[in-house]
Each structure stands twice: as C-alpha cells, then as structure tokens.
C-alpha cells in the first residue's frame, strides 16, 4: 500500500515456497545434465544447458498460466497465487540462460553483431520447415524481460495499474510465441515428435482451464436481479452471508461485495486497488476487509484503507427488510462513508 517499499515481499510462507521452487529447479537441471551425460555423451555442455533450461522454463510457464483459472475454480490454490510473481521472475532468469547461450552458440562467432545475426542469418521467413524460429523466442524473451523488471509494486504504482496490467497480459502473446518457437524450431532438428506432443497437450490443458473458469464466472454474472424498488435491488436473504465474509453480486456489469460485519451489512466495489483482486472473496481481519490476493485492507463503512494508506474504493447503500438484503447499485464516490444496514 502506501508504506515504504522493501526489495522482496518475503514472509515465512513465501520463503518456504521460494525454497521449494529453487530446490525443484536445481534438482531438475542436475537430473537433466546427468541423464544427458549418460545417454548422449557426445552433446556439448552448451547444448545441454540450452535444452535443460528451456524445458524447465516451459514447464514453469505452464504452471504460472494455470494458477489464474485454478484459483477461480477452487480457493485451495490461493497460496500459489501469492507466489506467482516469484515464479515468474524465476522463470525469466532460467530462460535468460537459454536465450543467452542460444545467441552465444549460434550467433556470436561471425563478424556480424549477434542481435543482427539473430534476425538475418536465416531469412527464410516465408518457409515453415526453415523458419527462423529463434526470432520468435527473442520476442518472447523481451516480453518476459519487461514483465520481470516491472514485477515490483513500485512499477504497479508508477506505470499505473492499467498500463501494468496490460503489459502483463502480454504473457499470453509470449506464450503463443514460445509455442511457435518450439514447434517451428523442433521440426528443424528433431525427428522425435515428443516435444510437439507435449506442447500440444500443455496448450490444450491451459485453454480448457481458462474456458472452464471463464464459463463459471460468466454464469455467475448472468443472474438477473429482477426485484427492484426505489433503485434498490433484492439480492439475497440475510442468512446467506456469513459473519465477516461477503457475497458478490454482479449488477449492471459491476461486481459489488456485500460484507457482514458485527451485525451490519456494508457494500463496497469488488475490485481491489492493488491489482484488481476480488475483495468479496476475502474476509474481515482486525475490522478491515482484507483482499485475498495480497492483503490490502479497506474499512467496511467507507471503503478507505486505514491510515497511513490512501487506497479507496466505491461504497454502496444496502438495506435490510424482513430478513431480505436490498442493494443499490449506484456507486458513491470512492471512500464515501455509508452507515451500513442493521441486520436486526
């Protein structure tokens, strides 16, 4: 929030996750290198390094891209979400080794600048079998680079959340480029189709996960709230909302979270100011609505982050009549104090 920045947001849990990631990477790379030394002893060390890092990075990339839809399908996956940023930066560091050695091995020996050589040593841009697939990998690497260097909250604030989010959505373009880099690259030097099959299975898994999660979300948003009265819309019964928790209602395409806190109901906009996390999926901790993604907090009665923080979200009017909850979808300005609705 507004407090002073630290270099890396580590706590006990994140440290454990990072150690797991780190150990996994080391074990993977070591196993790959040892197996290659046993079964393909004629490979050069550069080739082994290029192949072990590329496969590890692609594996991690699939995990990263699955986390979003998985958390929407099941809350158990939230701990992975907290750690996605570290996973992303780890992946970039690994694939940087692959890219650097790719350029070193294939483009640094001539008298042409390696970066120029990357695009011009093979100009069969109109061929499938000979396509200069390394150029595709290069553009993917640039996207991962831009994402990695902006992975600190400082950049979220200073580029603005909108631009930051847009930049990070380019991960899907990068993924597409990687798929093409592998497909077009592998057909040039491998007769074994196993790589292509693994990539296709990976892509199908990712697309299905995104579709299922997207459909689930869309179905929830489609519910029509028909009962209207003086701007208020009937949304649910009082007992359907648990104490210190919320229910999310999508009215006129806006998602609103209605929280129950100490015998009162309060409504705020569902979108966290940090990275757009779903505030209604969090809970009340120390009297504050706490975002499930990274823990930004807001006071239920006015949607303001407690001082010294300055984030604010829209608030809404709620009322309770005969144990029924009515919500007015007209937003008040961000941070406007609302009295809430007495349950009893």
């Amino acid at each position: 929030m507004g407090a002073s920045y630290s270099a890396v947001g580590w706590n006990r849990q994140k440290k454990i996750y990072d150690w797991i990631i780190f150990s996994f990477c080391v074990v993977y790379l070591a196993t790959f290198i040892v197996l290659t030394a046993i079964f393909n002893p004629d490979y050069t060390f550069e080739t082994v390094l290029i192949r072990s890092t590329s496969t590890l990075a692609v594996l991690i990339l699939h995990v990263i891209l699955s986390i979003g839809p998985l958390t929407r399908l099941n809350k158990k996956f939230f701990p992975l979400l907290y750690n996605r940023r570290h996973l992303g930066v780890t992946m970039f560091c690994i694939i940087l080794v692959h890219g650097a050695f790719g350029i070193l091995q294939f483009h640094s020996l001539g008298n042409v600048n390696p970066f120029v050589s990357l695009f011009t040593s093979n100009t069969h841009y109109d061929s499938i079998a000979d396509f200069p697939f390394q150029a595709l990998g290069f553009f993917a690497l640039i996207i991962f680079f831009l994402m990695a260097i902006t992975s600190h909250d400082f950049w979220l604030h200073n580029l603005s959340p909108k631009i930051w989010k847009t930049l990070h959505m380019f991960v899907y373009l990068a993924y597409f480029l990687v798929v093409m880099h592998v497909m077009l690259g592998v057909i040039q030097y491998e007769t074994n189709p196993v790589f292509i099959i693994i990539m296709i299975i990976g892509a199908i898994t990712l697309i299905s996960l995104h579709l299922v999660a997207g459909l689930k979300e869309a179905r929830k948003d489609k519910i029509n709230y028909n009962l209207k009265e003086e701007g208020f819309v009937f949304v649910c019964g009082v007992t359907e909302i648990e104490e210190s928790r919320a229910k999310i209602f999508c009215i006129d395409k806006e998602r609103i979270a209605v929280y129950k806190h100490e015998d009162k109901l309060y409504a705020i906009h569902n979108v966290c100011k940090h990275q757009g996390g779903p505030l209604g999926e969090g809970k009340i901790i120390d009297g504050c609505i706490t975002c499930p993604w990274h823990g930004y907090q807001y006071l239920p009665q006015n949607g303001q982050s407690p001082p010294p923080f300055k984030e604010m979200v829209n608030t809404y009017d709620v009322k309770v009549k005969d144990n029924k909850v009515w919500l007015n979808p007209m937003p008040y300005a961000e941070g406007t104090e609302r009295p809430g609705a007495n349950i009893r």
Partner: protein
Amino acid sequence: MLITFISIIFIATAIYLAAGILFTIIFQAKGLSKIDEGVHGSSWAFKIIIIPGCIVFWPVLLRKWIRSK
C-alpha cells in the same frame, strides 16, 4: 536491406538504453524520492531492484519527475 534495417533498430535501441542509464544515475540520486512517497525509508536493495525498470521506462519516470516539481 534487412541487415541495414535491423542494424538501425539495434542502434536506436542502444541509444535509448544508454540515455536510460544516464537518466537512472541522476534519477536515483535526486528524483526517486520525489515521485513516490513509498520510497522514503525503503532499503538500498529496493533501489537496486528497480534499476533495470528505470533504464527501460525512463520517459515515464522523467514525466512524473517533471510534474512533481
């Protein structure tokens, strides 16, 4: 033809990034704490970790810095 084109892009990128490095040196010393109050009391490791971003996104930071004056 292609080689000339790629070379020009390469040189332009290099100049842009060189300007970014120059900017980052001055910015880290003088401007950083002016554009974002979260920087007060932050660690030196934080300042190092944002260096690559400063070199690449320097026009954004420059604009913010000028506006904060």
